[in-house]
């Protein structure tokens, strides 16, 4: 499993961020070491970071370093020069709280070093998607977003598509080459696909030999990799939105059905179906 070294100017901050992230872990957690403070004050200590990396070397297949403010990166780079072990180490550019959370979830489901680093690096995407457009003159009736990649899913509820029934069926992939399995399911739990349900989806698909994606048919967002909590959160899917779950691979049908079941069960958060 991939391990983490959390580098922070503050031990309090680092411990709280790790505690928060651990709320999302259901099962064996990835190994985590904290390197925080310098000489018992605020700061970062490259020697302590190097020790933390070396301490993980025996139990981790790779180490992701997640940092807080600027000089934490400098100290981490120096630590990689100073360490004595040879375990692969990468410093992530991702945000501290979101990155630790998304990275731990990905690592707990068996992601390799590239997977986990990518997850931490892109952990701001979900928040970006959820923060309303800051343009004070924005008209909610028309799409004034100048970013061609971000326009469709910014909370504009006028683009709803007809809501289909919750059923699954086999289908050809869009390019017609590989058979894909897909299903539609409507989100029932009040908070939608927030972090806890997203973590459940990531964990569920990790058990299958299948590449699974989830798209938000209601807003047009996605498809997002179901192995990525961040990508799932970026769908901005809320109660009543219709998700399209799609998979390819040996276990595609089982993977799709498992995710569909999670959705229609409301991830255990919804009122029982009448």
């Amino acid at each position, binding site marked *: 499993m991939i391990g983490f070294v959390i580098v922070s*100017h503050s031990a309090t901050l680092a411990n709280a961020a790790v505690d928060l992230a651990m709320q999302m872990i259901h099962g064996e957690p990835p190994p985590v070491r904290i390197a925080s*403070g*310098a*000489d018992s*004050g*605020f*700061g*970062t*200590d*490259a*020697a*302590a970071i190097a020790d933390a990396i070396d301490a993980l070397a025996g139990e981790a297949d790779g180490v992701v370093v997640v940092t807080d*403010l*600027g*000089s934490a990166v*400098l*100290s981490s*780079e*120096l630590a990689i*020069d*100073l360490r004595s072990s040879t375990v692969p180490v990468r410093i992530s550019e991702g945000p501290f709280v979101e990155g630790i959370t998304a990275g731990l979830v990905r690592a707990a489901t068996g992601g390799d070093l590239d997977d986990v680093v990518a997850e931490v690096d892109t952990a701001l995407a979900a928040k970006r998607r959820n923060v309303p457009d800051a343009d004070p003159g924005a008209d909610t009736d028309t799409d004034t977003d100048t970013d061609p990649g971000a326009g469709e899913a910014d909370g504009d509820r006028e683009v709803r598509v007809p809501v289909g029934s919750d059923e699954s069926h086999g289908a050809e992939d869009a390019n017609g080459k590989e058979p894909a399995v897909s299903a539609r399911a409507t989100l029932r739990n009040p908070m939608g696909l927030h972090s806890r349900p997203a973590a459940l989806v990531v964990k569920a698909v990790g058990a299958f030999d299948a590449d699974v994606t989830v798209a938000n048919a209601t807003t047009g967002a996605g498809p997002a990799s179901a192995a990525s909590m961040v990508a799932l959160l970026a769908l901005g899917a809320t109660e009543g939105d219709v998700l399209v779950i799609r998979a390819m691979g040996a276990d595609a049908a089982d993977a799709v059905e498992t995710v569909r079941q999670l959705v229609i069960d409301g991830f255990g958060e919804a009122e029982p179906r009448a």
Partner: protein
Amino acid sequence: MADAVTLGVLERWVRDSAARLDAEAERLTALDSAIGDADHGTNMHRGFTAIVGKLDAAPPQTLAEFFKTVGMTLVSKVGGASGSLYGTLFLDMGKNAPEGTSMSAAEWSRVLAAGVAGVVGRGHAEPGDKTMIDAFTPAVAALDDAVAHGASLADAAAAAATAAEQGSAATEPLVARKGRASYLGERSAGHLDPGSVSTALLLRAFADAVAEERG
């Protein structure tokens, strides 16, 4: 006056630096409170005080050992970017130091340049970014130039210190592009960069140590 950079010169240098940082800690911290997090003076003083303790406990026997001891102590005790950057300076000087207990002015010039190159590689700062590099870069150039023209070690070290002081003074109007001061943007102009001030202090202390050490 020493005509070679001996272990004696180097020890005198860091001990004098610790004393100067003690005297200047308040001023450095005041500079840092204008554009940073108000801890550069206390951090540097803490680091160099710790180095003095290490030298007292176990005097280094070689140039390489001296630089490594200083570098690792700064890394662990200073904290923040200046700990990693000054730590890298001394660690990289140690990697490039000649064997033994003494080096010539030309070797010192090369070793300091290697240390500064390490700092640039670590911090990615360029001249004009309002960092310690604005003091180090002209100092390395002045040192190299003096040595190339046959100057004595004392004169070359003094030229380097003067160049560092001028480089530091020139940071005042600059807008910071690196480190926490860069969060201030235009508001960072009008203040000296604290890191460049401590660099100038260290290089002046070195020049004085060369002038004062017998050998």
